[in-house]
C-alpha cells in the first residue's frame, strides 16, 4: 500500500510539472506579452523597455525556472489589470469557490449514491423511474436556466433564499443545488450500473448463502465493490466543479475563482490566468491522487498492480 501511494505521488508530481510548464508557455502562445502589456498606442521603444523590465528578453527556460520558483513560494507575479499581487487576489476568491465546490460534490454524492443504490436494488420500480427521470432532467437542464428558475421561485416568488451574494450560508444553498445537480446524473447512473453488475456476481450469492442479512449484503458486500468507479468519476467532477463553476458563480454573483478566471481572460490579464490554470490543474491532480489512494484502499487488487 505504501509503495503504491509513493508511486502515485511520484506520478502526480510529474504531471504537476508538465502542467506548470504548459500553463507557463501560454504566456508566449498568446502573442508577445510585452506588446500586450504596453497597449495598442505604445511605441516600439516602450515595448522594448517593458520587455526588459519584465524580463521577457531572457531565455525561456530561465523565465520558466524563475516563475516556477516564485510560484512554489506562493508568488504568482502582479496582475496586469488590478496591479496587485495575483496570489492575494486568487486567495480571496478561492475560498468561495472551494466552499461551493465541496458543497456541490457533497450534494451530488449524497443524492446520487443512495438513489443509484435504491434504483439498482429494485430495477424498473417506481424509485428507479424517479431516479432515471431526475438524472435525465439533470443532464438536459442547462445550469443557467435551472439556476434562474430557482431564483425566480425561491427568491422572488417565495422570498425564502437570497438571490445573490456570499454573505451567509443561506446564499450558498441554491448555487450548491445547481452545481451539485449538474454532477448528480453521471454519478447516479454509474452507481446504479455498478450495483446491478455486482449484485449479479457470484460472491453476492456466497454472502447470501452464508446467511448475511440483505442490508449487509447490499452495503458491505456490494456497495464497496460498486463504488470504485464512482470514486474516480467524483474526483474528476470535483476538479471540474472547482475550476468550472463559472456559470453558477455568475448567476448567483458569487465572485469566486471561476468568475475571476473568466474576467481575466477577457482582460488579457495573463499572470492571473496562468496562476488560475495552474491552481485548477493542481486541484485535478490532488483529487485524482486522493481517488487513487481511496480506490486502492477499497480494492486490494489495485494495490498490487
Amino acid at each position: 500500500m505504501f509503495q503504491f501511494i509513493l508511486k502515485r505521488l511520484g506520478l502526480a508530481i510529474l504531471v504537476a510539472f508538465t502542467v506548470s510548464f504548459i500553463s507557463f508557455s501560454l504566456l508566449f502562445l498568446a502573442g508577445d506579452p510585452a506588446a500586450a502589456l504596453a497597449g495598442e498606442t505604445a511605441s516600439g521603444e516602450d515595448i522594448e523597455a517593458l520587455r526588459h523590465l519584465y524580463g521577457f528578453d531572457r531565455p525561456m527556460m530561465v523565465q520558466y525556472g524563475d516563475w516556477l520558483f516564485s510560484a512554489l513560494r506562493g508568488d504568482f507575479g502582479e496582475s496586469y489589470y488590478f496591479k496587485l499581487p495575483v496570489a492575494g487576489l486568487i486567495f480571496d476568491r478561492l475560498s468561495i469557490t472551494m466552499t461551493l465546490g465541496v458543497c456541490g460534490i457533497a450534494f451530488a454524492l449524497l443524492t446520487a449514491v443512495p438513489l443509484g443504490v435504491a434504483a439498482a436494488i429494485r430495477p424498473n420500480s417506481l424509485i428507479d423511474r424517479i431516479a432515471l427521470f431526475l438524472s435525465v432532467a439533470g443532464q438536459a437542464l442547462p445550469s443557467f436556466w435551472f439556476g434562474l428558475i430557482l431564483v425566480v421561485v425561491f427568491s422572488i416568488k417565495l422570498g425564502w433564499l437570497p438571490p445573490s451574494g456570499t454573505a451567509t450560508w443561506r446564499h450558498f444553498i441554491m448555487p450548491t443545488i445547481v452545481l451539485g445537480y449538474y454532477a448528480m446524473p453521471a454519478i447516479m447512473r454509474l452507481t446504479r450500473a455498478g450495483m446491478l453488475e455486482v449484485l449479479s456476481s457470484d460472491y453476492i450469492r456466497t454472502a447470501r448463502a452464508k446467511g448475511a442479512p440483505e442490508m449487509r449484503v447490499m452495503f458491505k458486500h456490494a456497495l464497496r465493490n460498486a463504488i470504485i468507479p464512482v470514486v474516480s468519476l467524483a474526483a474528476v467532477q470535483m476538479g471540474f466543479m472547482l475550476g468550472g463553476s463559472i456559470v453558477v458563480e455568475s448567476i448567483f454573483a458569487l465572485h469566486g475563482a471561476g468568475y475571476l478566471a473568466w474576467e481575466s481572460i477577457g482582460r488579457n490579464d495573463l499572470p492571473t490566468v496562468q496562476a488560475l490554470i495552474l491552481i485548477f490543474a493542481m486541484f485535478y491532480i490532488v483529487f485524482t491522487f486522493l481517488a487513487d489512494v481511496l480506490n486502492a484502499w477499497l480494492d486490494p487488487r489495485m494495490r498490487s498492480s
Partner: protein
Amino acid sequence: MADRLLTVRDLVIDIPVGGGTLHAVRGIDFELDRGEVLCIVGESGSGKSLTSLALMGLLGKRIKPRATQMDFDGTALLSASKKTMRSLRGARMSMIFQEPMTSLNPAYTIGDQLMEAMLLHRDVPRAEARARAVELLEKVGITAAESRLGQYPHQLSGGLRQRVMIAMALMCGPELIIADEPTTALDVTIQAQILRLLVDLVREMGMAMILITHDLGVVARVADKVAVMYAGELVETGPAKEIFEAPMHPYTRGLLRCIPLPGKTKRGSELGTIPGIVPSLVGRVSGCVFRTRCTFATEACRGDIPRHLRGPQAFRCVLDDGGLSQEKQEVQA
C-alpha cells in the same frame, strides 16, 4: 428408521421467460438422512443447480418454487420466514459453488470472509471465530493458515480458493452441505484431490451432503444414494449400488455407457453416447421428456408416465422394466 434430515415432495420450479414459462423442474421427490451422501447427476440444464438453490432459498425474487413438502429437520423451507431461512443458511445448511474464482468477495480478506460466516450466526468473540478459521483452513489442507487469513482472494489459486470456500461452508458445523459441481471449474489435476477432501470432511463430521455433478465416476466413489435428473425430472432414484449394478431407466443406462467404470467396462470397447439434445422446456411439457432421445420410445410415451418401484429403487418409464428386456434381445440379435 434412520434420522431424516431433508424431505422434498413434488418440487416444481417455473421460471418466467420472455414469451411464457420455463418449466425447469417438474415435480421431483427425494429425501436425505443425516450423514448420507446423495448425488444428483444429469446434464447441464437438467435443473440440478436450481433444485439446490431452491433448498437454500437462493433462487431470487423472480422465481417462486412450489412443493407439497420441503422440510429440513422439521422446518418447512418454502413457508419459512426470511429470518428463519437466514438463520439456517450458513449455519445448519451450507453451500459450495461451482466457481471458486468469482465466489469470494475481492474486497475482503480470506479471514474476514471466513469469520463472517461464524460471526453472523454465533455470538462468539472475534478471536474464537479466528481460531476456528485457522483450524478449518488447516483441515482443508492449506499451509501457513494463520498468514493466509490476511490475504485477498486474488492472491490465491483456484484450488486454494475452493478450499477456502469449503472451509467457509464448514465454519458453523452445518448438518447439510450442498456442493454444486465443486470441482468442475478446477484443473483436472486437483479435481480428485478437492473432492476427496470434501468427502472425507463430510464423513468425518457426520454431515449429510448433496453433491451435484455430471461426473459419474465421482458418483460411483462417494454416493450413498443417486438421483438421476433429466430435463427437470428425476427419472431414477435409488441406492448407489443398485443404480450402478442395475440401472432401470433408459437414460440412466445411456449415461452409464458414456463413462468407463472400473470392472464394468470392457477394455477396448467403445464408450456410448446419447444422441440428440435436451428438449425445450418452455410452454406445456407432457409425457416422458426423454422420449425424443430414447430408443424404446412409442406413442404411449406421450401420455402419463407411471412410477415403478424396485425395492429401494424408483424410476419413471412406460415400460415396467425400462426397456431392459428389449435391449437384451437387441444385443443378442
